[in-house]
């Protein structure tokens, strides 16, 4: 790879490389129940970012000594196909995938009623088919829907989106190139109805004020994602079950 110079990420009209304004989301497509053999599944497409999630369980924890007497174990694997990124990703789990599996799992643990399934296990698999920025938040959004699709009782849905800072501007939903050449990337996962943060990371530099501004932009974006989630559920299950 040769050293490439940073492109201008926001033009004089405040437009981003793909034509969006700073607070615009990319085109979003959500499908629930897309994989037949899992207990629950969802597909989220956000621009070129494409992510599947599938859920198996609740089922008997295996091996048995891992079972917890008063609640279910929630396992989560965030994984990328080898061709999802610009450079081929090595087979097997990278350290990044291990970390992201952890933060996605911990976000989901915050909302699933694990205590209803003692000695059980719930497996959540997130598969990134194409990575163009925001894969962990798209994965968390999909995973939350897959859990709902599997009929696993949850306090509420989780919706997630990243915000970033590019050319000094706080933006919603950075793409891969904005992430690469930008000053900061901050993935946020929230419970949209009770207004709590369940996933939060920051990679980059922001002033305190920019950080707060970023959180608020994320909160607004998450409301949009949440509406799309509810519509996707409605498409599959009809109006009566949308109040998850």
């Amino acid at each position, binding site marked *: 790879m040769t050293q490439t110079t940073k492109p201008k990420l926001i033009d004089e009209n405040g437009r981003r490389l793909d034509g969006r304004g700073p607070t615009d989301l990319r085109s979003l497509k959500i499908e629930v129940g897309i*994989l*037949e*053999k*899992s207990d629950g*599944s969802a597909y989220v497409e956000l621009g*070129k970012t*494409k992510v*599947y*999630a*599938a859920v*198996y369980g609740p*089922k008997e924890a295996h091996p048995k000594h891992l079972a917890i007497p008063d609640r279910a174990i929630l396992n989560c*694997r965030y*994984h990328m*196909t*080898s*061709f*999802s*990124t*610009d450079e*081929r990703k090595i*087979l*097997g789990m990278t350290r990044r995938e291990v970390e992201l599996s952890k933060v996605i799992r911990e976000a989901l643990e915050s909302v699933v009623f694990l205590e209803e399934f003692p000695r059980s296990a719930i*497996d959540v*698999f997130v*598969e990134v*088919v*194409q*990575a*163009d920025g925001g894969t962990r938040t798209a994965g968390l959004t999909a995973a939350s829907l897959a859990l709902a699709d599997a009929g696993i009782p949850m306090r509420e849905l989780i919706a997630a989106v990243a915000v970033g800072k590019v050319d000094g501007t706080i933006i919603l939903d950075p793409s891969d190139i904005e992430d690469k050449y930008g000053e900061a990337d901050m993935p946020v996962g929230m419970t949209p109805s009770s207004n709590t943060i369940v996933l939060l990371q920051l990679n980059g530099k922001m002033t305190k004020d920019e950080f707060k501004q970023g959180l608020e932009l994320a909160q607004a974006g998450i409301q949009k994602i949440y509406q799309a989630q509810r519509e996707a559920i409605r498409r599959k299950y009809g109006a009566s079950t949308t109040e998850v």
Partner: protein
Amino acid sequence: MSFLPLKERSFTIKIMSERVYKLLQQGKRIDERSPYEFRKITIQTNVVEKANGSALVSMGSTRILTGIKVELGTPYGDRPNEGVFSVNAELLPLASKSFEPGPPDERGIELARVVDRCIREGKAIDLEKLCIVPGRTVYVLYIDIYVLDYDGNYFDPSVISAMAALATCTLPNYSLVNEKVERVEGEYIKVPIRDVPLSLTIGIIKDKLLVDPCLAEENSLDTSIVICMDSASNVVAVQKNSPGHIPFLLMESIINIAEEQISKIRAQFKEVVGVG
């Protein structure tokens, strides 16, 4: 995916197996297909823009995604004039409760190696055209297969999806400038396809055969075999892929059915992908 001979199976599987066999005796199957009829095939190519080639293929509810990434590398010492490819397959845990996370187990390895043999022995790629500088620089194609949803028979849709990804794969063009390999900006070439080997999986219950088993059938089989043929109906790869006996005398029918049905798959492949 337990393929044990009848006696060893648990009671429910035995019942199911008997049902499948009785239906077969009447020329029927549990999902309304006729014995030698494969499931509906859909092929979508270029589904992953970041891959050089990609294809999402479904065969019934079994769904396979193949992507190809291309790099430059060195040829094998004994084949200095040929490009290189390698096939990997992962049975993603999304796809089935019987698949575990982790490095490919023996099933994933078998799948990758059978697809590799189909492509290699079926002479699917003109590897000599993938050589840039003999002995030094060649294209290296990483053909990675992911099983996304598993309702039986991942072999046949994997071969289709690998071939569809190959047939639509574009490679950045390189030229030799002053002994140095340089990218010709903006130019792409296609992977030179010589043939399209395709496979058919055939299940055996006693004296009866069926093709492209779905998951419920797969669990009811005595055994099964994958036959791969090129466009001239040469046999280019075979894999008996589960325990159990194939009566020697059934082999002739197996080969004839494979020839017939593979030609039907080939027609569909050609219609969608353009070669075949």
